[in-house]
């Protein structure tokens, strides 16, 4: 069956560039504004928290980041142009997560380098020693705990792309917007993440 695929531009700017937020000083307690904000953002709280939980690895930090993100989203709500509320909130949440990592666990985001990641990657064997039955190997990868642990072990820069794709189901374009990186980088990080997961899940099998 043929599907017609339409995709509208989802470009958005999560926060104003002069983002100290003091310049605009909107009335924060305008009930109409609050209602509009709530209507747009409440449906995406699970998404925001879920991303924070995946990036930060524990409930306590995820809660802090989600709270920070929600407050910021409210402050910068005038910069939201009504296109993709979920991606907008996710972009802010992601930034809050990185800010928190920088404060509390800088070693986790220190020195991720696209080229290093590419070089350290051992390409999975293409011919010859390929696993006899990838379906079976990965069916056992269905083991929930092992899969989740493997994803938790990815570098945060790859983990976020994988989670945005597989948990939130965002398109490459949306992921690029949320993470503020080009689509090409989305593709390369995603395939690195998957190669790493395939390797881990396969090794665990043998």
């Amino acid at each position, binding site marked *: 069956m043929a599907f017609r695929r339409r995709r509208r531009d989802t470009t958005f700017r999560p926060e104003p560039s002069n983002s100290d937020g003091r310049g605009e000083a909107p009335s924060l307690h305008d009930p109409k504004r609050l209602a509009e904000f709530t209507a747009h953002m409440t449906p995406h709280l699970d998404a925001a*928290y879920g991303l924070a939980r995946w990036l930060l690895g524990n409930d306590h930090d995820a809660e802090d980041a989600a*709270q920070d993100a929600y407050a910021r989203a409210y402050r910068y709500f005038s910069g939201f142009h009504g296109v993709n509320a979920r991606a907008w909130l996710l972009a802010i949440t992601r930034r809050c997560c990185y800010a928190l990592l920088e404060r509390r666990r800088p070693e986790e985001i220190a020195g991720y380098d696209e080229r290093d990641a590419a070089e350290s990657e051992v390409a999975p064997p293409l011919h010859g020693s390929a696993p006899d039955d990838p379906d079976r190997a990965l069916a056992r990868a269905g083991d929930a705990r092992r899969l989740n642990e493997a994803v938790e072990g990815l570098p945060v820069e790859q983990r976020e792309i994988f989670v945005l794709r597989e948990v939130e189901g965002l398109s490459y374009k949306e992921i690029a917007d949320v993470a503020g990186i080009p689509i090409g980088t989305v593709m390369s990080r995603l395939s690195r993440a998957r190669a790493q997961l395939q390797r881990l899940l396969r090794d665990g099998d043998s």
Partner: protein
Amino acid sequence: MTCDEARELLGAHVDHELDLRSDLAVQAHLRDCEACRSQVASLQALHEAAQAHLARHPIPAAVARRLRRSVQPAPARYAPWLTAAAGVLAGVLVAVVVMRPGLDRTERDVIAAHARSLLVDHVIDVASSDSHTVKPWFHGKVSFGVPAASFPEAGFPLVGGRLDYIDGHEVAAVVYQRRKHVVNLFVWPTRATAPPSESNEQGYALLHWAEGGLAYWLVTDAQAEDLRELQRLIATAPR
């Protein structure tokens, strides 16, 4: 296309993110290359495992409450009616703020109805996973037979139904669950027929088609491919 070239694209092929020309080239390569076929199968299996087992981490209710309260005015300074008015306005504004030039009215209403159903906890009027309960519930409430089959084996259990309004008409809303996500199916009579057509608005995936005298709209914050799967199930289920 060589293996090396193809392998760069296999992930995007599995994700349906390739442009048509590249995708055809990949498909042509896959017909001749067993190693790449097996890599595609392995990526597909990883995707399915992720869909089935990756932790979702929904926001704890207490945290969601605290977040919502954190942006609300201090109760001492505002009369209670103002807070109540904000609540009412939220409902009204879902309908208003999603308006955007270029979005047709039906699409807009479908998104608004879906968002509203999540927002005010008014997902269902009749809660049942049994299509023999949900189907008759609509008798006498709407003037057409409502398709309300359940597909639990395929991962789309029916959770219930309710009445809703789209484009000024009363319509049937059939509610499915897809993992932790809600899928709303809106149905109403039409003379038109239309092939399935997808769109993506405000972070929601939509899928519309029309056949057999009914217009169908699926909407969810789960994935577009989930809708495609559910569409196939609905279209082939006995009415």
